[in-house]
């Protein structure tokens, strides 16, 4: 699991991640349901669920020292993992024709957002991380975690202007990669 790579998350908190994982899933399911209902206001807010998971997890001694913003960064990573895992499953189900029992319904496809494009984004983000981990983290926090510019600036210890500049470059590069 990629979370283990983050310095703040050691093996001790592993059990705790499963819970975060569950919270991330519930939040994604809620968002998915709003989109399917055609609710245009569906947005990833600093979610009640992730907040609640944070409140609970912050009581565990190992995580008590972890600042809330770092926690939200980990939550963003959990969101990313859930989505990528879900996308992989959808794809596997589609390819393994016979086994496709409970799977993605193509007739309800949401525009250009497909499991494939999510997996491409994931790969491109990995490539970006190899060149500039901070910028990859920025994208992860913003796209998967819904963090605001100011929050990301505080988290990464840079100015908001830098965050905006780095986002613009990273977004442009990723978008280009996804097309190509």
């Amino acid at each position, binding site marked *: 699991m990629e979370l283990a790579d983050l310095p703040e998350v050691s093996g001790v908190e592993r059990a705790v991640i*499963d819970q975060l994982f569950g919270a991330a899933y519930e939040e994604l399911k809620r968002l998915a349901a709003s989109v399917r209902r055609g609710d245009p206001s569906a947005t990833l807010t600093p979610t*009640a669920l992730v907040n609640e998971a944070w409140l609970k997890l912050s009581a565990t001694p190992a995580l008590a020292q972890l600042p809330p913003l770092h926690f939200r960064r980990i939550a963003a990573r959990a*969101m990313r993992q859930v989505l990528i895992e*879900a996308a992989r499953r959808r794809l596997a189900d589609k390819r393994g024709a016979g086994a496709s029992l*409970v799977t993605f319904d193509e007739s309800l496809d949401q525009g250009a957002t497909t499991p494939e494009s999510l997996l491409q984004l994931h790969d491109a983000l990995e490539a970006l991380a190899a060149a500039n981990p901070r910028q990859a983290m920025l994208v992860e926090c913003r796209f998967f975690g819904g963090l605001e510019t100011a929050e990301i600036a505080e988290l990464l210890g840079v100015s908001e202007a830098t965050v905006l500049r780095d986002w613009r470059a990273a*977004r442009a590069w990723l978008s280009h990669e996804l097309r190509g």
Partner: protein
Amino acid sequence: MNRARWDLLQALFEAALVLPEGERAAFVAREAGDDASLQVSVLGMLQADGRDDPLLDRSIPAAAAATVGRIDGRVLGRQLFGPYRLLRVLGEGGMGVVYLADRADLGSQAAIKILPDAWLSPVRRERFVAEQRTLAQLNDPGIARLYDADTLPDGTPWFAMEYVDGVPLTAWCRERRATIRQRLELFRMVCEAVQHAHSHAVIHRDIKPSNILVRGDGVVKLLDFGIAKQLESVDLPADQTRTGLRVLTPAYAAPEQLRGDPVGVHSDVYSLGVVLYELVTGRLPYRAADRTPEEMAALVAAAPPQRPSVAAKEESLRAGEVWTAPGSAAWADLDVLCLTAMHLDAARRYRTVEVLLREVDRYLNGEPLEARPDTVRYRMVKFAGRHRRAVIAAGIAASLLVGLVVFYTVRITRARNAALAEAARTGRIQRFMLNLFQGGENAVAPADSLRVVSLLAGGEREAATLDREPAVQAELYQTLGTVYQRLGKLDRADTLLQRALTQRQGLLPPGDPEIAASLIALGQLRIDQARFEEADTLVRRGRALTQAVLPADHPTAVEAAVTLGQVLEKRGEYAAAIALLDSVVQRDTAGRTTGPELGAHLRELADAHFYAGNYPLADSLHRRVLTMYRARYGERHPEVATELASVGEIEIMLGRYPDAEQSYREALDITRGWYGENHPETAANLTRLGRALTYEREIPEATSALEQALAIQERVFGPVHPQVAEALNELGNLDFDQDRYDLAAMRFRRALDIYRQIFGERHQFVAVAMSNLASVLVQQKDYRTAEDLYRRSIGIYEATLAPDHVNTGIGHIKLGRTLLRQRRYGEAVVESRAGYDILIRQTDPATSFIRAARRDLAAGFDSLRQPELSARFHAELADSLVQPAVAR
């Protein structure tokens, strides 16, 4: 791509961005030189920068919709779920998607619930399976039944349950314009279904009209146990089931649920209250639209809801309807029903759904309601709150305790066939309850402020209804009786234990071990009541029964032996007590009994040795228990305090006062932390500390400790109790040391009276009190009366204690001094010498009494003109003053 390459890309991209659009391509071409791929990348980035990206700009919701929580439309119409074929989606809940399915072979319908994305986390799978298990357990006409369950080849779990073709409760009432009475009748059906779940220890946690369907035939069904919870699974902080908290419905959730606190029966009572409110008024008690749980919790906490009578009136005016209003008295009752069920303080709600149900029935029958908010549960919760630390230390959340006890009584009431499972459960809860109160010998708190007694009264009422289950009833009486005893409510305990015994004697064959258990329990109560002769008879009868039918190592047989040992010790038959308890401990050790039982038995044996005056043996036994308990319970447990106090007691007897003071301070610190200031255990340790300080001449500190102790004890125990006498005795000693003789005499007389009333004339405590009173009389120069008291006390010591007991020695020395004061030198030296000889054989010869004896003997022999003997004691006296012997 490496770092340098990326930096170059970003630098070119940003440099190009500041140029007019028309110049960018040329700039990039110039800067990239012959690096074609660099040129392509930067130009691509510039293009991408200027256009919308379908993925990156849409962010998460669309991505989620594409990947998460979907079921393939192709599952419809195919027979993949056992004999069932899915027809259409019925709904999507927090924990799965529900489909309507049919079964061709039977021509019947079912609802199938599927868990999408089951791969995601074990927690979700567990919860899904938990719902399935819950439904399998419940078998009630008001709850949709489980039919079948399995897993698809890809691992997706599903289960089939009864399909309810019905309309949500509130909609049904609205559509049919149901009368208040009809609404209440539907509501009581809901209560019955919830009550059924509770009797299986299942809390629904999501009761709301959309989960309550009314079928065409008027039958009500409770649905969706998706977030239901087994009462016995404790809500520990690490509990992960609340991951899906969002699935609760803020409008109907209890305040504790909204806050994320542990839930119980009381939470479902609250939700039922909201449903009832909505049923009778036509609107929700709080406007909940789009509120988060936090906002809702704040709203509910801020003010009670509008009274249903007022809300209903407003609502019908607004809707232009005219209800067949049930009249103002009936509305007052509806107000009480709703608002009691919905009380912000869980402890003030109906304590069970059963109670709510009875109230609804009273309403429907036109009888007056019984409910007053200050119920048993309220008191119970208060109790649990006051003793929070004890409860938590027991590893159990206070709410679970309440839930369990309530559940227990409910369950008992419902126990129509007392099966084996019931017996196991009864035993478990009995142990649980007793453990709760364990720690203090006599009481958990002052008896008059002890609200928990009200809970027990509730238990008694429940027990009284168990006429058709006399065995269970007797068991409950026995349990309640023992609990009352632990609480120091001895009269109540007496009634209940007697009742249990009588019932068992009428119910069971004469030799039954349960009768023995009842006899022994009653015997234990008699010990607490200081009615030792009766205790003796009862325990011997019980023991005879166990010896006839049970093996010697059976718990009841062991209990009989230990209890008899206690009786013997209390009656002053120390040798017999020691022999009996020794055999119990030996059997424990041989049979490898360890833990609390062995500790308790060793302690009894140590006490018997202590009272018999075998201090070194008592000391080593108590220290053994102390080590065991520290390892078992940690440093700060009441059991550890009890042992520390016992060790201190021995140190006092051996004259090691600073050690005793240290032991008592540790014990006091533990009991204060555990029970609080106003508790008999705290008082007992204050008394002990006061005694040690008195011996050490720390008078002001000693006085303060003892007066605090006496005040607590008189409040807790009433005027005639050994512990009150003990406190009086210590204070008397202190007054005596301060030359306040009248006060001292008064205190000693009171102590003597108390001891006589409790123990009769021939008991060493009576002798101690006599001896102390005599010491005051000596100071007041009433030598004759003093002499008489000393002689009587020595007689009692000799009859009840081991030969050469310290107390006997002290008695002789005091008598000697009295005679010396009367110038009866010949008699005086005989007594002083007898006392001196006894004390000098004890472990530590440095006590003040030995010095007193030496002084008196020296003076006596002087007066008798026996210079050699006189010189010997003068010399010993001088030695002991020069180098205070400390024989440790």
